[in-house]
């Protein structure tokens, strides 16, 4: 986003968020793109229409979105009113580009699309509580994923 396009109050609020910094910068490479298996991770609070909505319960961190999902299967339980939802309301690919990813696989640009994707409900980073991220990383490995794409809102 362009910070100059929002109000002074909103700009100040966004820039006031404390972002974590890290002493090390791990780097993991992988095979060529056309051999990669790709998963989507989003922090938009998306979940299945019949899933339990997020309610900021401690320990309730993510939802699993099957790779076979269709657009009508997903709804959003994010709390914030600070981002646009009208794009997603017209087209899920604005946040969760599964159609685009399927096309990329069909065209041979990527190797394949993962069987499972993941959705968090976090508004802010939680570097002091990395367990849910580690758990999902382990699940991605079991799904033979070697490219995780992150989509915030």
């Amino acid at each position, binding site marked *: 986003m362009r*910070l100059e396009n929002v109000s002074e109050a909103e700009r100040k609020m966004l820039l006031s968020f404390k972002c974590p910094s890290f002493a090390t910068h791990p780097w993991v490479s992988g095979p060529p793109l056309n051999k990669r298996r790709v998963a989507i991770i989003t922090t938009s609070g998306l979940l299945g229409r019949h899933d339990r*909505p997020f309610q900021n319960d401690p320990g309730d961190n993510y939802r699993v979105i099957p790779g076979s999902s269709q657009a009508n299967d997903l709804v959003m339980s994010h709390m914030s009113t600070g981002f646009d939802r009208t794009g997603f309301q017209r*087209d899920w690919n604005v946040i969760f580009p599964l159609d*685009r990813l399927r096309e990329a696989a069909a065209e041979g640009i990527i190797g394949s699309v993962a069987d499972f994707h993941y959705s968090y409900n976090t508004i802010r980073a939680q570097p002091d509580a990395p367990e849910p991220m580690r758990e999902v990383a382990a699940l991605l490995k079991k799904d033979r994923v070697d490219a995780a794409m992150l989509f915030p809102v």
Partner: protein
Amino acid sequence: MPTAGISLIRPHTEVIQPPRALWVPFELGRPLGPPNNPVFQKRVLMALLKLFEAPSGPILVDFPDEEPESSEESMVLSCPVIYAGDADEAGAADTLEAAFHREMTAMRPWYDMAVAERKRTTVGISGIGIEDLGVFLCACVQGKEPESPRKDLSLAYAIKFAAEDLKAYYIEAITAQPGQQGASSRKLQDWFWDETRAGELLLELKKVCEASPDKTLNMIGLHFMVPHSVAARKGK
């Protein structure tokens, strides 16, 4: 696990320094850019995928293009219901709630058309059917405490999600009208909050939530019912 992520707020990414990030100039809520523009979305996706081929990092790359402009200059969003605010045919005072129910009903053909066209709806997180959504929200505005529609949802969250369902119902409906598929988020937000009775009702509901002794409901009223920019503009 190799990762590549969209960066929405560049200064945040500069501090965090994730391995691979693509900064995009699009508004919050649209990491892939505009809706219903697969060609543009694919370009964003490809730019992100390309980052997996970088030899070393961390890298932060800027996506070069702005989101294509919507043709909103020519668009006038119309609201189907006029709220008299004074009297109806029988001489009885027209209430916000009565006007709101009429408005919801009048939006229904467009909502149904949107669902048929898109084969999807984002309405549904509250678990309340559209027929009952208005009644539920009006009861909350009146300070009543209806039962939560879902066993797995507290009343406070049910109210929050019912409000989101209501907004989604209106936006899906209005963007099904001729020429309004590509309306900008700003245009749609202004329309909802300034011209609809639904927006007016949620501003009332915000006040009710803010006055609640329930901490969660209070927090929802303060922060999660109406966008801060709208609340500030309306002095709420």
